[in-house]
């Protein structure tokens, strides 16, 4: 039986993160190639939207990741606040830039998709507006963390902000159900059969997994950098520098 809690110490998490970065990174690259091959080369032209629909293979995974990463940030902030665990705060801080990137990608690719299909780069419907609010929340988290000099206080204050802001994520998710929006409803759900061709669904799911692995790899790489910054004076760091 592995005692998982031993990885709560930065010293023991650091090498684990290094291994995971390598594995997840390479797997993400491979799956991206496969997913894009399916999406751009193999999947047929859509009956209604023509070739423009192919942006779904970036847009949907990025949107999913933007929501998942914010929930993960809130989760790790809660763990950090409850248990006073500094590695949890480092994880939350490391997730934020990737989440902001995913959010921006979702909005940008959405605009690129909206222009040929809806005729507009941007509409102020519920889902787009709440996703834009999510981007502001990510940027607010990063700004608050950067503005406070004391690391511990910055972590905890930004953690409270993440917990307050996570209320927005269910609003984004359910916005297409609660409001009459231009953005299409859920085509993929856990309970019902998917309402899209299976080859397109396969490509989208492979890209989703690729985005997950990419996010994990990049976040853990960032956590390693944060550990090196914050734990610079620890004894085990000295040994690390000697062996490097």
């Amino acid at each position, binding site marked *: 039986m592995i005692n998982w809690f031993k990885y709560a110490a930065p010293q023991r998490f650091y090498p684990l993160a290094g291994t995971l970065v390598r594995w997840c990174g390479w797997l993400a690259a491979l799956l991206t190639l496969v997913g894009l091959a399916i999406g751009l080369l193999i999947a047929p032209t859509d009956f209604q939207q023509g070739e423009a629909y192919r942006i779904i293979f970036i847009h949907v995974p990025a949107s999913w990741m933007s929501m998942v990463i914010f929930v993960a940030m809130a989760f790790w902030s809660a763990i950090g*606040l409850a248990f006073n665990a500094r590695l949890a705060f480092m994880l939350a801080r490391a997730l934020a830039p990737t989440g902001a990137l995913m959010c921006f990608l979702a909005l940008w690719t959405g605009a690129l998709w909206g222009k040929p299909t809806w005729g507009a780069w941007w509409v102020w419907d519920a889902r787009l*507006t709440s996703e834009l*609010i999510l981007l*502001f*929340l990510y*940027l*607010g988290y990063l*700004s*608050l963390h950067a*503005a*406070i000099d004391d690391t511990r*206080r910055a972590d*905890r*204050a930004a953690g*409270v*902000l993440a*917990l*307050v*802001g996570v209320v*927005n994520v269910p*609003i984004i998710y359910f916005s297409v159900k609660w409001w009459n929006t231009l953005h299409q409803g859920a085509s993929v759900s856990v309970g019902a059969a998917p309402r899209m061709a299976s080859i397109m669904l396969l490509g989208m799911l492979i890209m989703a997994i690729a985005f997950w692995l990419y996010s994990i790899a990049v976040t853990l790489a960032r956590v390693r950098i944060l550990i090196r910054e914050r734990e610079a004076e620890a004894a085990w760091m000295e040994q690390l520098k000697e062996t490097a």
Partner: protein
Amino acid sequence: MSEKPLRNASIGVWASMRCLFIRDLKLVLRRRSDTAAALAFFIIVASLFPLGVGPQAALLKQIGPGVLWVAALLAAMLGMARLFADDFADGTLEQLLLSPTPLALLVLAKICAHWLCSGLLLALASPLLALQFGMTNQAALILAASLLIGTPLLSLIGAIGAALTLGVRGQGMLLSLLVLPLLIPVLIFGAGAVDASMAGLGISAHFSVLAALLLLALPTAPLAAAAALRIALE
């Protein structure tokens, strides 16, 4: 000589809240320029829009609710920083943290006093500005009603931002940056209520959501602000 038992010197929760509320009110009333400045900002910003977009009556009537709501938002955010700043500077805030009364309730008392001297005045001044935009009397009244429910929300959620950015350099701008995204739903439903009434549609949905948001924020926002205060002062 028999020893008299010490009288229980603590006051109750409600009494301490009332005490803090009255103290904050007195402090604000002694320095009325802060309140007047927020009100003046509201009026000036609302007056800038007709000067910027031109005086066509139809256009002003259409953008009036949104413009006035945004101006109220910005004016409320400007005054939010002073909720805790003075008490932080002279050490009163630390004493409040040490009080046996739950900090969330003390924060609620401060927010109430702050709202009475900022948000309430904005809501009461809004019908006059609505006339400036050529809105009908009914629309002006609905605007005031929506602001009456919305400005407490602004104070409640703004208090979280004020507590998070306590003593941070660049507090004013950072506070607005943090709090305005959280207030976008309030803006949408508040301005939407006035727009709906001007279009002849029902306003009950908008006011229901606004009231629901207020009822949700009343217990939770002071708790979040109290947690943020403890983080800021540890």
